[in-house]
């Protein structure tokens, strides 16, 4: 009886997911980022924003797919949410399990530390001195998390703080809980 998030993730990955070639995903995402860079004339700040927007659009749809497959119960705390994201969410869609760490004392912020990133396999950032300081190559993942969590009433902010492509030692994304969204009644005549 699958109970821990890790077991749930493994079980769903093995049974309920259709697999696709990883290199296809890597190359497709790579050409998206490269084309964005060309289109925006190497304005990497804009590229980051666009990747985040694209990720947001993916996330709001992805959450339905996730809930349909994983069928997990409602998370009681933000810590539960973090565990589910890393052990089930990333496992199902990218077959990786980033580590959750660096919790702040108020439990509203955590880090996801990626020891492998299939989106960035074989990638070398361009040599123009700007990319290595401005571009967050995997920024689409931040948008995905933001969009998906917003659909389950959790408003978060996600951004990368380090990336091996930029020369850092680890790839780390910081996720901050802004607030839990309450459903609001529309203003109108009662």
């Amino acid at each position, binding site marked *: 009886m699958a109970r821990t998030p890790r077991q749930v993730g493994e079980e769903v990955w093995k049974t309920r997911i259709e697999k696709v070639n990883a290199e296809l995903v890597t190359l497709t995402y*790579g050409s998206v980022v*490269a084309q964005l860079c060309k289109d925006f004339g190497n304005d990497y700040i804009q590229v980051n924003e666009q990747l985040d927007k694209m990720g947001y659009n993916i996330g709001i749809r992805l959450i339905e797919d996730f809930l349909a497959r994983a069928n997990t119960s409602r998370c009681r705390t933000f810590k539960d949410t973090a565990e589910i994201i890393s052990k089930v969410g990333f496992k199902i869609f990218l077959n990786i399990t980033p580590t959750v760490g660096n919790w702040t004392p108020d439990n509203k912020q955590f880090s996801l530390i990626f020891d492998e990133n299939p989106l960035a396999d074989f*990638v070398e*950032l361009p*040599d123009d001195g700007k*990319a290595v300081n401005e571009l967050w190559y995997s920024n689409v993942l931040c948008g995905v998390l933001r969009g998906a969590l917003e659909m389950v009433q959790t408003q978060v902010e996600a951004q990368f703080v380090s990336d091996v492509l930029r020369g850092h030692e680890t790839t780390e994304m910081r996720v901050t809980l802004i607030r839990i969204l309450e459903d609001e009644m529309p203003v109108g005549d009662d």
Partner: protein
Amino acid sequence: MSFYLAIIGTKDNAVYDLEFGTYRQGGDGTSKFSADMKQLCPFIVHSSLDIVEEMQWNTNVMHLKVIDKFYNYLISAYMTAGNMKFLLLHETRADDVIRQFFVDLYDLYVKTLMSPFYAVDQTITSPVFDQRVKMLAKKYL
């Protein structure tokens, strides 16, 4: 024993080149080409391009072995599936070793090609690539 490696692109453009010496028998890896020879290396290598293009149709393997001679220097060639030419200027015959070197170089080249920011026929300026080629040279030549 010195070597000059050149990678030529599909439009006969230079993509990468490297001069190095042997690491065998106490060599320190620096090339021992005379100053004249250093200038001539790219010319010699490029002049054998015609022969490469002729020979590629005669065989169905990628390694073309020695295709040209210049005085006492030999030029070996390896043609990749994507029409990239790896040319090596060397002094002594070592077909098998050079073939292994080329095969590993092809592997490195494909990995470079996988990066979305690298276009075909672009020059390779990455210091990581440079370092890895030098390690290959150390391993085989």
